[in-house]
């Protein structure tokens, strides 16, 4: 926005508009920040998630099934507040133990103890 000319009325209007724009920007930013932070807290920031995984059984903690969060009452009281994902089949079946190859004992080279 270019600076107005010498007209004092224009200058006053320019200042007023600039102030109002700044105030509006600050207000909107603050409200958005508060909502965003609240949402971030609700979905857990990385630090909380890391602590939760470290303190609980990993396979259950991720879905909040039975494992209470170390972050407190709300997580413990409402363990299903997010991470609702349907169980899916694994991408690969678990590796099967080899049944055809015989397991040979380790060779003894020194004649025992």
């Amino acid at each position, binding site marked *: 926005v270019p*600076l107005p000319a010498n007209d004092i009325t224009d200058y006053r209007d320019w*200042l007023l508009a*600039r*102030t109002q724009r*700044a*105030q509006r920007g*600050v*207000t909107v930013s*603050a409200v958005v*920040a*508060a*909502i*965003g*932070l*609240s*949402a*971030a*807290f*609700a979905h857990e*920031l*990385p*630090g*909380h998630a890391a*602590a939760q995984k*470290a*303190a*609980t059984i990993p396979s259950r903690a991720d879905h909040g099934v039975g494992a*209470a*969060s*170390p*972050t*407190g*009452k*709300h*997580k*413990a*009281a*409402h363990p299903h*507040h997010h991470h609702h994902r349907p169980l899916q089949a694994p991408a690969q079946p678990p590796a099967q133990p080899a049944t055809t190859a015989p397991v040979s004992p380790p060779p003894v080279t020194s004649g025992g103890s």
Partner: protein
Amino acid sequence: MTALWYTARGTGVVALLLLTSTVALGAVGTARAETSRWPRVVTAQLHRHLSLLVVAFVAVHVASTVLDPFAPVGWTAAVIPFSSAYRPVWLGLGAVALDLLLAVLVTSLLRARLGYRTWRAVHWLAYASWPVALWHGLGTGTDSRLTPMLGLDVVCVAVVACGLWLRLRLLPSVGRRIAVGVAAAAVALATAVFAAAGPLQPGWARRAGTPQRLLSGAASTATPPGSAQDHRQPAVIAGAGS
């Protein structure tokens, strides 16, 4: 009621950021710093607008904290310092900060009746309310240990330090300048030491004065008390995040 809890935490953090900006802008305005595109009148108006915004966010922060039913924080404890059963010292600091803010707000609204000297004397309380609010957030905040929150705290300290440095340049006496500078540095150092020895250490919830009922209730559903994680459990149920 979970939404209330998240609201309390979010608005608490934003209120601290806004208070930081208000203090810094006040110092910048007093230092008569301006440019052709950012004249002092804009700074002054923004400072006033920010301070009202701080009050609004603190009101939401307090209301959501009190209405959240888990932690025993009442309306009285939100206003009268150190009267809470839950973390009395650290929640009490929040009440002190709130009272100081209210005093600054009321005297600013009545500035024409009170006179400039009285208003100015009370307005210095704004500088006191900022570190008190910061300590309140560190001491009873749920998320004090998180790296983003620690980063925000550091940014707040840096911003206020810059504003204070601008303000100190206006003091005519070199002795007063040094005294205020040393006091400010001592406050920053004390804050760092407190954070390192208190909220960042395990078991802070117990030492901070969380009622045993909440500690045992949280501990029975999670990790054992005294473990490396137990400081987090009651922190979430504090109802007075930063």
